[in-house]
């Protein structure tokens, strides 16, 4: 009887010990979460109601927000920078996802040199963003850049790229397509996870390549596309290094490349308007949250999970 209780007691302490050790082991993350994520997030929200450069503090209520949303571009570059960023995101995402998917489809065949292609297409994602920006700056140079020269070869008159408000944003869209290899790798892994029996069955049914793509590949890949879409939206919205480097931190000409995070950076660390910059940061956070939720909500319309596909089959 008493030995039984002792055993029970022992087991209880073993579990308790495990729990204690577990909390101890995850404590770095808990501390980090409080000190570097949750705390700063709340502080950022609080700061957005102040006007401060760290030395003087003034409570201004919602003034930062009313100013931020003001349509007067001499007072606020919020709408301008949001428009520029949205322009970039809207053009860059379909192109990078499309290109990444297309290359992945090509590489998902038994062809020679597959791993070499994979390495080459992934290279732009390895190179420091600033080094890549330097080269592209030279390539897009209006007077002696090779891109205008190549355009000239096919009879197109060169444009002034980063020096023209109409083409400046396009430079960054083009650069993003150059980096589509990151998406390609994820798509390729997804494609290799599709059971080959599905294609064999389709072939016996006489389905041509296009119909196989439409009815097998795309539905089976939709969870991967969903994941890539969300990460791409969040990351493209934060475009910074290329723009900072290639426009000398000015976002010109005439603010045509003033991206959201560049604007935030300049307000915070050049003008030291830390309260206003915090308001900008929180608005960005909310925008990204809304976009993510929107994609999540829409996913029931276009994302198929394997169980559903299985259900269709039977």
């Amino acid at each position, binding site marked *: 009887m008493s030995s039984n209780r002792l055993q029970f007691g022992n087991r209880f302490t073993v579990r308790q010990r495990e*729990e204690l*050790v*577990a*909390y101890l*082991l*995850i404590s*770095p*993350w808990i*501390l980090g*979460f409080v*000190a*570097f*994520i949750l*705390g*700063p*997030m709340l*502080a*950022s929200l609080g700061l957005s109601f102040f006007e401060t450069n*760290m030395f003087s503090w003034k409570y201004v209520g919602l003034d930062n927000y009313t100013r931020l949303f003001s349509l007067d571009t001499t007072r606020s570059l919020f709408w301008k920078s949001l428009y520029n960023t949205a322009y970039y995101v809207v053009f860059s995402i379909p192109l990078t996802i499309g290109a990444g998917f297309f*290359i992945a489809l*090509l*590489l998902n*065949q038994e062809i*020679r040199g597959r791993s070499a292609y*994979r*390495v*080459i*297409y992934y*290279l*732009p994602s*390895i190179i*420091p*963003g*600033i*080094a890549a920006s*330097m*080269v592209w700056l030279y*390539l897009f140079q209006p007077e*002696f850049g090779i891109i205008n020269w190549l355009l000239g070869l096919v009879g197109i008159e060169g444009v002034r790229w980063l020096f023209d408000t109409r083409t400046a944003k396009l430079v960054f869209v083009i650069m993003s397509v*150059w980096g589509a290899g990151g998406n390609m*790798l*994820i798509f390729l*892994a997804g494609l290799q996870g599709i059971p080959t029996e599905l294609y064999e069955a389709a072939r016996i049914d006489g389905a041509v390549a296009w119909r196989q793509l439409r009815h097998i590949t795309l539905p089976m890949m939709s969870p*991967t596309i969903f994941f890539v879409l969300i*990460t791409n939206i*969040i990351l493209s919205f934060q475009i*910074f*290094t290329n723009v*900072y480097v290639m426009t*000398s*931190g000015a976002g010109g000409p005439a603010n045509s490349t003033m991206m959201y995070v560049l604007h935030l*950076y300049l307000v*915070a*660390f050049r003008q030291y308007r*830390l309260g206003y*910059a915090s308001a900008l*940061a*929180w608005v960005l*956070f909310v925008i990204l949250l809304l976009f*993510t939720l929107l994609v999540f909500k829409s996913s029931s319309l276009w994302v198929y999970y394997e169980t559903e596909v299985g259900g269709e089959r039977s």
Partner: protein
Amino acid sequence: MSSTTASMHNLSTSQNQVRRRQHLVTHVVLLLGAAVILFPIAWMISTSLKSPEQVKQFPPIWIPDPLVWENYINAVTIFPVPFLLFVWNSFFLSFGNVIGSIVSNTIVAYAFARLRFRGSKILFLLVLSTMMLPQQVTMIPLFILFSKLGWINSYKPLIVPQFFANAFYVFMLRQFFTTIPRDLDDAARIDGCGILGIFWRIILPLAMPAVGIVAIFEFTGSWNWFLGPLIYLSKMETFPLALALSYLNATYRVLWSEMMVVSFIAMLPPLLLFFIAQKAYIQGIVVTGVKG
């Protein structure tokens, strides 16, 4: 009988022909794409060896003649501080973060993968929810905090947070740890291993490939990091290569060859690492990308 085998043979050769033609088209498209990808990199190297006149020559020159190797000497002596300082700073930043992320993320991931504790599910969801958080929303209070601590112009704000785990790596390592059979834990427990013994003797040695992936990712990420150093470092002797390059761009925008030289040098370490550890690299992306 023989006629059917003959027709089957015919069918398969014509199928082969179709497939071969298809592969030829695929190769042409892929090679064109590869050329577009490699072109800027080749152009960087070519330009790094051009004379100032050749840089601006129109139509452009593919292979500079003569090769101006002095550009490399010019580029590394153009700064008011020794160039090797930038290289050292970049390595310091990268290795500091590699150590920090390995130490913190392996133990956190181990607890989430193997130990039973109250709230583990909710806490893990919380970890995942921070994965996509835009860093801008914490950037300004952290800047205030670190400057109050007197950490500006030091590497502390850039390295210390990495010692407190990171959602992305915790997730990736946990995925790897859960694939290690639990029988091994049980066997070790019978041999008298405690919770930490199992981690140190079983999980960590078996998860070395995953730990390697974390190290490679973190090295490349820190080496290429721009915004963090830009915010916290303003004295030139503290610059990593990325900031040195930005300084060069801001100060001597006409020195294209020299900028390409420094770009090339800054690109080399992550590139070499990628070539050496390509398999691990791609596996890491696949695990975190698809299972995410």
